[in-house]
């Protein structure tokens, strides 16, 4: 069973998430503040942490740094819509993804599945579907036929190998262009636009190759 630690200072949210996650066969621990979260994570190492950024005792990024000192456990942060800065700080501190409050349980479950899937070997994903195209990642073919440049392939592969997961701009630039790159977000913007024009049914309303503005990109299967 996957053990999830949910950290939030609001008892109603804790109750709603506990019931929803247990119903989907997750093992749920809860904590109401940052110190409690660090303590619980050490006592019963979880497979995933859902962390609210507005804790009473500690800054969310502080909690993440405290965990990242010794644990690679996937972390999903819950943040208010206006906390753009906190969200970026949390991702920089090592959070894996975020969900904006108020959120639907479906959305949170999708994120949980995406970040816990990371531990599976990447080879497990051989083909992926983008609209009407089937993309074979092992022999680099697309059916029906569609040609991509090498850079487009690399970019697409990074996304398809992490279905549902947020890949930050910096991560993508490092992986595709090299470690010297990290701020050239316009590269990503242009190449993503090309990929959408080639693969999405309606490039102006993408369904699979999604942008999280200012954060990164996500392949939605």
């Amino acid at each position, binding site marked *: 069973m996957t053990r999830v630690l949910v950290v939030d200072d609001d008892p109603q949210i804790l109750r709603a998430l506990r019931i929803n996650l247990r119903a989907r066969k997750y093992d749920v621990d809860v904590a109401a503040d940052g110190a409690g979260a660090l303590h619980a994570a050490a006592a019963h190492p979880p497979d995933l942490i859902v962390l609210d950024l507005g804790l009473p005792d500690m800054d969310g990024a502080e909690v993440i740094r405290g965990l990242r000192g010794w644990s690679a456990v996937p972390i999903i942060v819950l943040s208010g819509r206006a906390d753009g800065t906190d969200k970026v700080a949390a991702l920089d501190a090592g959070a894996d993804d975020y969900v904006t409050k108020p959120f639907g349980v479906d959305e949170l479950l999708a994120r949980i599945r995406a970040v816990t899937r990371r531990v599976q070997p990447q080879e497990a994903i051989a083909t992926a579907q983008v609209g009407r195209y089937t993309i074979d990642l092992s022999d680099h073919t697309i059916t029906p036929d569609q040609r991509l440049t090498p*850079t487009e392939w690399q970019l697409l592969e990074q996304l398809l190998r992490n279905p549902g997961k947020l890949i930050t701009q910096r991560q993508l630039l490092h992986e595709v262009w090299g470690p010297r790159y990290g701020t050239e977000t316009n590269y990503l*913007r242009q190449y993503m636009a090309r990929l959408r024009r080639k693969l999405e049914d309606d490039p102006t309303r993408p369904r699979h190759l999604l942008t999280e503005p*200012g954060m990164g990109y996500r392949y939605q299967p």
Partner: protein
Amino acid sequence: MFGRPLGEPLSRRRRLAGFALALPGLPLLALAAHAAGLELTGDIPLFLAAVVGVALVGGLWPALVAAVGGFLLLNYFFVPPLHTLAIDNRSNLVAVTAFVVVAVAVSGVVDLAARRTRQADRAAAEARTLARIAGGVLRGPDPLDALLRQLLDTFALTSVTLIESGPGGWQPAAAVAAPSADPADSVLRVPADDTLMLVLRGPALSEANRRIVRAFAAQSAVALRQQRLTLAAEGDRVRTALLAAVGHDLRTPLASAKAAVAGLRSTEVEFDPADRDELLATAEESLDRLSGLVANLLDMSRLRAGALGMTPADVGLEDVVPRALDELGAAGRTVAVKLPDDLPAVCADPGLLDRVLVNLVGNALRYSPAGRPPEITGAAAGDRVELRVVDHGPGIPAGQWEQVFRPFQRLGDRNTHDGVGLGLALARGLAEAMGGTLHPAETPGGGLTMILVLPGTAAPPVPADGFEVE
């Protein structure tokens, strides 16, 4: 203000005129009387009349000179022994002495009367100025500004400023100024009350005019306090209306969500699956509406408080527009998006830009006729990027365009789906906070077009990727 016993002396000009009348006038009078062969009894009243005339024209000093001169002339020409200053007749001595005494006394009385008249004229002029200022002040819609402006005009000043002492020193509280300032202007500072002072710049003022200014310095302090009270009352009125509107809009979805959930929890009834689904959908839709409204209210209060957290980033409109449309649900999917492939990115906070777009497109959808959904177009405009949200609804007359950006104002009737009229006010506030602008225009063929202009980003060129085989 009226504490001077003798009033002001007569003007220098009048005094000189008095001397000019007395010095040649009396000898000529003596010659004329001599030629006419008048006796002393006729000469004395004649000279007395002349002294009074000089006193009326030139005041005390010319009159005294005329009295002494008259005495000498009478004595020399008309009192025996003639052509000497000696007097040998006792009754003549009494007559000439009485002439001098009466002349001096009359001079004094006439002079005093003239001074009093002049003083009264001056007081009347001051009273007229005061009345004019006070009248203008009391009648106008902005008493403080009217008062300062009246002072400016009345005394031909270049500027009038009411300054207030606060924690950071003296700060201007209100000011009016003439178009041009003269470096030679003098500055007059007049305390209005403990914390206020009137500063006048312009030609030097006479003592009388300073008295008027002092009186109105106190008035300006009262006008300022009055103005602040009025503003506070207006603020209270707006807040009350806002609370009522927000209260209504928050309670409506809360009530329906609560009713739906309470119904589902009831142990007294059994719902069939279709009813259960409908109740749950009602609860969720109500809560979505509620969260949209709360988001707008929070953003508006952050905007007002200057506490808007902003993380500007290079954002592609092709990325934020579809997300905003998704938030608008089924209606959002009808909107046509036409953004050119080479549209530059904008520099904006992605979350705030999303709120701007949701509100703009939501508004456009609300007024769009069935079958004619809004369109979104984009274009580069110099170093800025222009996004147009075009609707084909009834439109708004150009004269009322600015009204739609006032919070809690919506043209036409409210209905319960709209929420308070906060969307466009918020959209403009957020756009401006990000260094952009938001202006309405008319859609050709009818309807409203909202033009959002945001700073663009000058992105370096993307290296070519030359292996593509098309």
